[in-house]
Each structure stands twice: as structure tokens, then as C-alpha cells.
């Protein structure tokens, strides 16, 4: 058998538990795959809060992205004659100090909160995986330097770095995604690194190295697929953290400038009026943040259980 093919076979067999069985019986492999997926799915579904979390997230996504198509509001032009109106038939959640419809604003604000949350978390996941696998696989001096840098970055509160970045630039959605993503990968990098340290000593990784696979190939086809579980869990938690960070930043006046808005920005604006009894400016956005963040956290928790079950099975 040519060396290349041998390497391919090793990679196919060892991609984890979703791959076909080694003895070449495709049906057996299929059975194993479906059983494994079902087990993972069952573990996830057994965790009822996580299921509720998924429902809440799906609802929030529909609310923010499909809602504006059904509930039309003007979120561009201000309407000062209608400012600070209490909830009524024409404005279901009242209006804010600029006369924007609060329910429509909640949808718009949710869009940017979730866009930033998800995009920053994905970016953090990619960065953390790349950093962690590189440090863990190469080891030695490179590992030392890379991980000391992670330690140092971890010593500075994320909010502080974000404040510094936001103060010297004009915050925009893409910039915030990059900024939040570039400081949220540290935990992922640590976890991925420690898993890589275990993975790289396993036989199939050594086998791949022996048959002459390049470092990049070994990492991409043997290490990365096997740390994906941990990374997905971390990404879920990162979405929650990023939404909170964005809210904190917006409260401190360094979020995306108007007319753009997000839930944190709405809160900080509404808080100026909180003491005057305008509850609709303070509670809906806050509750929306809490619901979505709690949901991502419980989903993350449950996914972690799934991943841990997977590890035990291995």
C-alpha cells in the first residue's frame, strides 16, 4: 500500500467515533455512527434546561431577525413628539427618549448583540484552537513562550483591554467583533493546549508522523478534529460572555455609536430615566440579555456533558 494511502486510512479511522469501523464493514460503521449520535443527542436532551435554552435562543433569533419583517417600526428617524410614550396599542413596549419604538429597538439591538456575540465567539474559537494546538503540539520553548503570553493576557480583565481599545478608536460592529474575539480566546487556547498534549502522544498521531505526514497535516487532520468538542463548548460560553462584555462596554459609553444600538446600549440610555418610572426602558432589554446569556450558558453546560460522555466512551 502506498504511504500516502496508509496515512489517509489512519486519519479516517481515528477521526473519532463517527468514523467507519476498521474492518471495512460499512454497515457496522453506520450503525456505530447513528448510535453515537443518538447517545450524544440523548445526553443533550436529557438536560431539560439546555433544551429550554435552545428554545429561548431560537426564539430570540427569530424575534430579532424575523420580527422586524412582521412588526414594522421606524428605527432611523427620531420622533420627539412621541418620546417616552407608555406602552400602548401603537407602541407595544412604549417609546424611548428619541421616540423610537422600544419593541422594534429591542429587535434591532438584539441583532447587533447576537451578531457580535456569535461572531466574536467564533473568532475566539478559531484563534484559541490555532494557538492551543500549535503550542501543545510543538511543545518546548515555543509552548513556554506562547502560554506565558496567554497567562499575561489573562491577568488583565477583558473589560479593561476593551475599554482601552474602544477609547482610542471609534467602535463599530466589525471592530468590536475583532476586539472581543481577540481577548476571549485565552481559555480555549489553554484547554485545547492541554488536550493536544495528551493527543499528540497517542498512537495514531505518532503513526501519522511516522508515515511522514507534515506537522500541519497532523495537526489539522488528527488533533483539531479531536479537540472540536471542547472548542464548541467554549464557543457557546464565549457567546454569553461576549454579549455581557458588549453590554458593559455600551453602558460605559464605548459601544457602537447611534443610530446603531444593542441591548447594553439601550439599557444605559434607559437608565437615565429609570428613576422616573419608565420601566419599559429598563427591564425588557435587561431581561433579554439575562435570558439569552443564561440560555447560552446552560447549552454550553449540557454540551460539555455530551463531550465528556464522548471522552469516557473513547
Amino acid at each position: 500500500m502506498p504511504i500516502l494511502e496508509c496515512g489517509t486510512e489512519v486519519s479516517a479511522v481515528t477521526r473519532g467515533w463517527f468514523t467507519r469501523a476498521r474492518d471495512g464493514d460499512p454497515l457496522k460503521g453506520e450503525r456505530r455512527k447513528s448510535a453515537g449520535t443518538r447517545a450524544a443527542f440523548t445526553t443533550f436532551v436529557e438536560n431539560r434546561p439546555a433544551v429550554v435554552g435552545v428554545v429561548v435562543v431560537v426564539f430570540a433569533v427569530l424575534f430579532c431577525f424575523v420580527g422586524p419583517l412582521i412588526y414594522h417600526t421606524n428605527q432611523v428617524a427620531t420622533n420627539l413628539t412621541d418620546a417616552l410614550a407608555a406602552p400602548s396599542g401603537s407602541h407595544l413596549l412604549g417609546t424611548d427618549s428619541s421616540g423610537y419604538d422600544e419593541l422594534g429597538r429591542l429587535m434591532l439591538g438584539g441583532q447587533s448583540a447576537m451578531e457580535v456575540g456569535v461572531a466574536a465567539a467564533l473568532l475566539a474559537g478559531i484563534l484559541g484552537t490555532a494557538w492551543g494546538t500549535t503550542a501543545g503540539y510543538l511543545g518546548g520553548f515555543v509552548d513556554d513562550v506562547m502560554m506565558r503570553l496567554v497567562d499575561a493576557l489573562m491577568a488583565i480583565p477583558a473589560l479593561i483591554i476593551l475599554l482601552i481599545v474602544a477609547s482610542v478608536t471609534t467602535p463599530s460592529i466589525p471592530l468590536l467583533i475583532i476586539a472581543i474575539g481577540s481577548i476571549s480566546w485565552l481559555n480555549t487556547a489553554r484547554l485545547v493546549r492541554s488536550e493536544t498534549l495528551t493527543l499528540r502522544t497517542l498512537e495514531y498521531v505518532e503513526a501519522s508522523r511516522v508515515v511522514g505526514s507534515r506537522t500541519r497535516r497532523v495537526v489539522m487532520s488528527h488533533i483539531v478534529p479531536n479537540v472540536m468538542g471542547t472548542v464548541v463548548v467554549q464557543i457557546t460560553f464565549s457567546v454569553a460572555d461576549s454579549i455581557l462584555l458588549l453590554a458593559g462596554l455600551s453602558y460605559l459609553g464605548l459601544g457602537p455609536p447611534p443610530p446603531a444600538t444593542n441591548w447594553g446600549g439601550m439599557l444605559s440610555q434607559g437608565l437615565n430615566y429609570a428613576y422616573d418610572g419608565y420601566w419599559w426602558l429598563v427591564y425588557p432589554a435587561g431581561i433579554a440579555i439575562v435570558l439569552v446569556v443564561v440560555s447560552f450558558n446552560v447549552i454550553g453546560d449540557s454540551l460539555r456533558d455530551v463531550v465528556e460522555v464522548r471522552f469516557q466512551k473513547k
Partner: protein
Amino acid sequence: MVIVVTLIVFLILHLLPGGPARALLGPRASAAQVHAFIVANGYNRPVFVQYWHYLVRITQGNLGFSYHYNETVIALLKQNLPKSAILVGIAIALALCIALPLGLLQAQHRNRVGDHVVTTAALTGYSMPTFWLGLILIQVFAISLRFFPPEAPQGVTVGAILSQPKALILPVATLTIVTTALFSRFMRSSAIEALVQDYVRTARAEGVSPRRILWEHVFRNSVLPIITLVGINIPGIIGGALLVEVVFNFPGMGLLFWNAVTVHDYPVIMGFTLVIGVATVLGNLLADILYAVADPRVRY
């Protein structure tokens, strides 16, 4: 590590566009004035040369001069650091006093109603924007019920802050709630792990009372990982403290930093970051020492 921390912040500050000159001199300053400011403060030199000079100054105890406050950074830190330390210190101490027994009891009664209620509450507290929690507390306890003043104690010295304990309650409570949510979660999982250990079974077999097993065997062993976790989470707690200080107008480091950020006061930003870096390193060191004290098996 502290050096790496300062280097990172230094690079962020100096490589990103926008500088202190425009921020301080205002948009009407002429190009010549801006240039003179830049030269006078050495901002035209290469970044690493500037950083080297900064490091040399630090070793001489000179953290720079605040443009905005017209005071040395050291003086500002001396004035504000103890006040923030009080806020964070009390909050962490209270959070530990609440979270450790709470997590232990949750572990003992895990998956029962009480555990679910506390877990839900902790998760909600953990997922809540800190500033929003602070404002809800102000709304309820300061505006509706009028129990406490809505603002943190004001004053230059630590004594002045401590002399108004009533005003200190809401800021401390906000930070305590957020921190408790975090710690009780750690403690619950740590205690659950300790409960299934062999020494617990042995103690049970020997007829030790359940209460004694819980508080002597399980508690002490499950606190060990918490010590490290508290050390690791110090930066996060400081971040939360910053928000609390802004919400309650608490005259500490966080408020100082926030004001410095809005006016591009670089020396104060750098000084604050340095202090946080040192605090984190010291926090981790303290955690290591405490770990050795709590666990006689650990020897350094």
C-alpha cells in the same frame, strides 16, 4: 509576567490610531502645538524606546504624570487603590462566606428542589450585566424603599469611606452577588467530587456523623480547588468592580481608570494596568501559599 502585561497595554495604546495630544489639547490645537506636545512627551520616538524609558522610570518609582488630574500617577494610585481594595476585599470575603457553605449544601442535596433553585439563582446572577444588577438594587433599596443612599460613600481617604457604612452596602452587595454566583458554582462541583471519594466512604463506615463528614472531610478537601479558582478569577472580579464603581460613583481605581480612558490619560491607564498585573500575580501567589497552608501534603 507583569512586564509582559505592561508591554501589551503599551503596544495597544501606542499602535492604535488617535493619541493623547489631540485628546488633551482639543480639536482646535494647531499642528505645531500638537507636534510640540508629542516631542515634549517623547511620543515621536520608536515605541520600544518609549517602553524602555517607561520601564526605567518605573524602577525609579516614577509612574508618570497625569495630564488630566495634574497629579503624579503614584499619588492618584495611593489615594484610590486602598478604597478599591476595600470594596473588592469585602466583596470577596463575603462571597466566600456565603458561597462555600451554600455550594457544600447544594452538593449534599444535589438535584433536589433547593439545589435547582440555588443553581438557577446563581446562573441568573452570573448571567446578569453587573451594572444592571446595581441599578435594580438602587431602584429597589434606595429609591422605592429608601433604606440606603443610591450613591457610594464619597471621600478622599479610606477613613471617610468607612465612616459611611450605610452607603457602602449597595456597592458591596452588587459585587458580592455576582461573585457569590461564580464561587458557589465552583464549590458545588468541587464538593460533589469530594463526596464520592473513598475517604468519605471510609468515614461513613466508621460511623462518623454525616454532619462531621460534611464539614470536616468534604468541606476542607473541596475548598482546595476553590483557592486556586479565586486566584485565577481576580481579574474578572476587578472588571466587575470597575462597573460597580461607575454605577455607584465609588471613588476608586475603576472610576479613575474609566475617567482616564475617556480623556486618553495614558500614564494613568498604564499605571492602573500595572497595578492590576501586580494584583493578579500577588493574588495567585497568595492562592498558592494558602493552598499549601490548607493542604499539608503540598510542600514548596
